[in-house]
Structures are given as structure tokens and as C-alpha cells.
């Protein structure tokens, strides 16, 4: 595959790894957070952690859309499907996120709820057009990457006069979450989470550009390297972060120049701000209430806002006590530190949200790396 294989070349990887090993100072520890689940997935799938020297540690960040979705939000969607007889459309991973009463959207579907898996919000609007006598809701989740298509679909529905369609908007914002982590007591006061720099998001940055991260380098003195989701991108970004630390620099650098500019996609940004606006606060699973960290639908489009349309208020629900997703999402704990990891909580029966998506830290470690936790006699 052109434009893909080049970024998965094992030989080139060896060169970058050799540079990392040579340049990482042996008397120093380097701790970097990859914010995005896409990077977490690449690190696990390609065994990147194995290639790094022991003093370079990767901390998984909260950038996995279904992982940060709180139970109460999934409960709202389930209510729409089971109690209000609405067709609920959503992305595949969202179907399996555990909610209250041992339910998930997939289990709600088995109980007779009309829940449909879609690949694009356009499919949801099509379902609304094809079922004029039914109410259709798109359960929208995700970071800035998936926000423009949601904004577009709301605008389209209004322009076309589709009246049986609305959106349950749960879009969240990357910079707000990074700020939250940098402000957390574990990072600022106790230093239990050593954080020397960030690998910045790939697809999110295509939309928002590299400019929003400049605050973290100037105010918090943390280097940020925006990187693509291929394994060579990740290795190169790690090398660039090590170089910044060694030079005493804290800058925003862009490894993903093939797709990311400083300004980002202005057209997409304009579309989003026309239809959506900031929420004062939003609850994230693991991070709790985070101010100005999510988007809601503007009042001009209120008819397309499922929250107001059906009057379904948000009720926060606490996570299972044994689940460590919160600490894992903040980088305080590793998946294998959780008592229920791989026992009660597995990808088949996820207890916490980090075990649901392949981008979740727990699912990635369970699926790709758990052989490392136990002694295995190898070939």
C-alpha cells in the first residue's frame, strides 16, 4: 500500500531506534504521554515499547473517544432506544461501552431497541430520510476529528428540512483534556506522574492545527511533537521529544507535516463553530468534570439537539469501584495495575471503558501485550 508501507518499514525503524538509544542520556528518565488512542494502538500493535530503552517510558493518555465517555451519556442513548422507541445510530465501538444496569447499546439492541451501527453520520441522516415515520438520533462521540462531520450533518438536516433527525452531541476537546492533566495534582504537586512531553494527536491536529498546543510549550514548558499514527511516525516523534529535552527546548514540533498545518482545516473549523458551541463543563470518564472541554449544539439548531428535543437530562453515574479506568486515563496507573484487568474485565466483557475500544489502553495491552506480564517459554 503506497503511503502506508513506507511508514511501517522495519529497517527504517531500526535506524530510528538506534538513534533513540544513542541520544537518550543514560542518567535521565524520559516519560512521554501519547495523548491519542491511535498512538496507543500503534505502540501496542507494533511492539514499539519493546524497541525503546528502559529509561524511555510511554504513558497512555485519555485520547480514546469511547474510553472517556461517561456511563450517564450511554444511559441517555439507551433510554432513547428502549423507552422512547427512537432509532439510535452510532459508531461500532460505542455499541459495547458498558452502561448502567449491566446494559450497553448492544444489549439494548438485543432487548428490542432499534440500535444501528454506522460508519458515517451520513448513514444516520439517510436512515432518517428512509424512515420518515420514525425518530432517528445520531449518538455522536469523539474528539475534533469526528466533530466536523457531525456539524455538517446537522446543517444538512436543517437545510433539507429533515425533521425526524437529531443528534446527541458528546464531542470533546483535546486541548482542554491536556490542560486538565497538566493541572492535575499528580502532575503538578505530587509528581507521581512524571511528564516530560507529549506526542500530539494526528487526525485531531489535521482539523485544529498545531497552534492550539503552543500554550503547553510556552506556559507549561512541555515539548509537544505532533505525529502520525504509523509506527515510524511514533518512533520519530519520540526521538524528536528526546532531542528537545536534551537541548532544554520546549516547542511544538510537527512530525506529521504530510497532513498537519499550523492553522489546521479552517473550513472544518468554521463549520463546527457555526453549528456547535462550548459547554461550560462536561463530565469525562476518568477525568471527572472538565471545564470548557466539550461542545453542544447551538440554539439556532435546537430542533436537532436530542438532549433538548427529548428532555433527557444528564445524570452522572459512578464507575464500578474496582475499575481503575480513571487512574489509567490520567496516566497514574498502568492497565496491569488494575485488579480486574484480564480477570473480570476482558474485551469480551468489559467492565471499564478502557477495555472496550482497541484504542483503549487496557484493550490494547490485553490484546497485544499481555504475554509480557507472565513468563512465557518462547521458541
Amino acid at each position, binding site marked *: *500500500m503506497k503511503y502506508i508501507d513506507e511508514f511501517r518499514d522495519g529497517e527504517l525503524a531500526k535506524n530510528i531506534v538506534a538513534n533513540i538509544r544513542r541520544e537518550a542520556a543514560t542518567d535521565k528518565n524520559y516519560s512521554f504521554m501519547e495523548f491519542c488512542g491511535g498512538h496507543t494502538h500503534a505502540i501496542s500493535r*507494533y511492539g514499539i515499547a519493546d524497541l525503546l530503552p528502559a529509561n524511555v517510558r510511554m504513558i497512555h493518555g485519555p485520547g480514546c473517544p469511547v474510553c472517556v465517555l461517561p456511563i450517564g451519556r450511554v444511559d441517555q442513548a439507551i433510554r432513547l432506544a428502549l423507552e422512547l422507541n427512537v432509532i439510535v445510530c452510532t459508531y461500532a465501538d460505542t455499541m459495547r461501552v458498558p452502561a448502567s444496569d449491566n446494559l450497553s447499546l448492544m444489549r439494548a439492541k438485543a432487548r428490542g431497541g432499534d440500535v444501528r451501527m454506522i460508519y458515517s453520520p451520513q448513514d444516520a441522516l439517510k436512515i432518517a430520510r428512509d424512515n420518515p415515520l420514525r425518530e432517528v438520533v445520531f449518538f455522536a462521540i469523539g474528539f475534533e476529528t469526528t466533530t466536523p462531520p457531525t456539524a455538517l450533518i446537522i446543517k444538512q438536516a436543517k437545510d433539507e428540512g429533515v425533521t425526524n433527525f437529531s443528534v446527541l452531541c458528546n464531542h470533546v476537546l483535546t486541548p482542554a483534556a491536556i490542560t486538565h492533566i497538566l493541572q492535575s495534582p499528580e502532575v503538578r504537586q505530587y509528581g507521581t506522574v512524571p511528564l516530560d512531553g507529549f506526542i500530539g494527536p494526528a487526525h485531531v491536529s489535521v482539523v485544529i492545527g498545531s497552534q492550539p498546543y503552543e500554550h503547553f510549550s510556552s506556559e507549561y514548558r512541555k515539548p509537544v511533537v505532533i505525529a502520525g499514527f504509523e509506527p515510524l511516525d511514533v518512533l520519530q516523534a519520540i526521538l524528536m521529544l528526546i532531542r528537545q529535552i536534551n537541548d532544554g527546548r520546549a516547542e511544538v514540533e510537527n512530525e506529521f507535516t504530510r497532513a498537519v498545518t499550523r492553522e489546521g482545516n479552517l473550513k472544518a473549523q468554521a463549520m463546527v463553530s457555526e453549528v456547535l458551541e462550548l459547554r461550560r463543563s462536561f463530565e469525562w470518564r476518568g477525568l471527572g468534570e472538565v471545564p470548557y472541554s466539550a461542545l453542544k449544539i447551538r440554539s439556532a439548531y435546537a430542533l436537532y439537539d436530542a438532549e433538548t428535543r427529548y428532555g433527557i437530562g444528564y445524570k452522572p453515574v459512578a464507575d464500578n469501584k474496582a475499575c481503575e479506568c480513571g487512574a489509567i486515563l490520567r496516566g497514574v496507573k498502568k492497565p496491569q495495575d488494575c485488579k480486574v484487568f484480564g480477570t473480570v474485565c476482558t474485551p469480551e466483557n468489559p467492565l471499564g471503558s478502557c477495555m472496550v475500544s482497541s484504542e483503549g489502553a487496557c484493550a490494547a495491552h490485553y490484546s497485544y501485550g499481555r504475554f509480557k506480564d507472565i513468563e512465557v517459554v518462547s521458541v
Partner: protein
Amino acid sequence: MNGEVKKGYVRGLDIKNGRVDMSHGSGGRAMAQLIEELFASAFDNEYLRQGNDGALLPAAGGRLVMATDAHVVSPLFFPGGDIGCLSVHGTINDVAVMGAKPLYLAASFILEEGFPLVDLQRIVQSMAAAARDAGVPVVTGDTKVVEQGKADGVFITTTGVGVVMDGVDLTGANVRPGDVILISGSMGDHGMAIMSRRENLDFDVPIESDTAALHHLIAAMLESGADIRCLRDPTRGGLATTLNEIAKQSRVGLTINEEAIPVKPVVAAACEFLGLDPLYVANEGKLIAICAASDAERLLAVMRAHPLAGDAAIIGAAHVDPHHFVQMKTSFGGRRNVDWLAGEQLPRIC
């Protein structure tokens, strides 16, 4: 005159415009006509011609293998095949990977009221052609009709019977450390062919299903005398899931080499686009063989000489591992688990 209507007074089935209705499952004359004109004429063989509730078959002389498989694939017609030939190939392969020569098939149809007869005929003819090509007749069958909305066009269940030659003993529990893993060709073709036709994905790439009957290939492999421990067809859940089943059954670890696994570029690209892993995508005309290391090269040569396994490859080996993990050496130089499939990657793939 036994209630029979004089020939010539009975109007034939209107295949072109007709549709399945509830009377086609009633047990009455309409059903008899559907069976006679559509099914019996297509599948025609001496056992079916007996016209009884069951087929009376000669003694087989050996250990019998029996396998059954329900087919609910959506869409019914896909590039490279349809539910008809798929239902024949799938069951023949389940019998054949046990090391058996498939002898007979039974077929059971659940039809949805309103299903076009012309589509049903196309499916039945494809099924009959597949059975004929494979030399495995459909000797008995059943038809039921359910109301509209209670099924999705047509569901087909096929059951196959075969006989195992003396000395052949293939099971997933036979694998020993040191054994070598082979596959007969590229992974993921069937699943991605189906995916490319799913209505909500305007995804138009020329990917054809690999649906095929593997019993002749398997016969050639068995004849070679290679010490084969186990054969499997990696259908739902793909290569990754099937290897996990074998590792668990045989209580060994398996390690595969990513670079050695053939995946067609177009399948790899489609998987990339959809975020799927070809190792978990279904195949319908491929097999996994695990054999003694000393026979691996010889078996590979026999497989490659067969038209259905030209791209056969040695992809890994078994070893001692108390956790029965399947691991992969990635082309990137790392190592990772290849886990069981979690959840549902592609529903209604076969």
C-alpha cells in the same frame, strides 16, 4: 385418479415474476410444485429421486464424519459467489478438514415470504453447480416458509457426511511443539468481498470471495504422506481466531511471522480503510495445515502445485507455552499477542 391434476392443466411456476408465498411451505401442492420444478430438477440424483422423507444410502465402509453449517450471509449475492455455492463449499470443507472424503449433502431452506423466485432459482442453480463440480450430491432436503420480516430472503443449512480413510487422524488437539504452520493462500478475501457489497458502505473495489471446495486439495495433501497433525478452514474470526482455537486444544503456543502471511494488496487496503485486521477476516476457500517440521517443505510443494493453493506459505511454528498464546513477530521487528476476536467484527459473513 389420486387427486392428481392432468399434466398440461397445471400452470408451471412463474419464475420470472413469481414470489415465494406462504403456500410454498404449506405441505400442499404448491410446495410439491416448488420442490419439483425448482429444487429436484436442479439437484437431480438417484437418492433424491427416491422421493422419500430421507435418503437411503449405501454403507460407507469407514469412520464417518458429519458436519452442519447454517448460512445467513448478507448480501445473498456477492462478488465471487452467492449463498448457494457458499453453503455447499462451507460444509464440504468442514467435512474435508477432518481428513474425510465428503460423500453426501443435505440442504434445508428457510424462505421468507415475498422472496423472488428468480433469485431463489439462481441460488439453487449455483448450489447444484457447486455440488456437481465437487462430486458431492445433495441427497435430501427440506423447505420452510416464514412470514415477511421473520427472515432475510433465504437462510440455508447444509449438512455433510464423509468417510475417513484408515490411518488418517486429524484434530486440533494433535499439534506438538516444533510443528510447522502452513496456510493455503491469501487471507481475508471472503470477508472483504462481502464488506465491499454491504449497502451502507459505498466501497467499490474488485475483491472476490475465495469460496471454494477444498476436498481435492486436502486429498492431495493426505496422499503426499506428510505427517499432518491438523487441518482447519479459517472462516469466521479468520486466521487469528482459528489459531487460538488450535493453541487451546493442543495446549501449545503458536508463533506466526507477519511477513510470511499472504494478504492481497487490495484486501489489505480495504482493511486499512475500514480499520479491520485481515487476520480476523473470514475466508471460505483457504485452509490452515499444521504438520511435522520435517515434512513442511514437501507439503508446501504439494499445496502449491494445486490450483487452489498456489500462494501457500509456511507462516510459523508451535512451541511450548503454558498459556497457549498465539504470538506474532511483526514486520516492524516487535512481538505481540494475536488474540481471540473480541465482539463482532463483521456480522453475517457466511
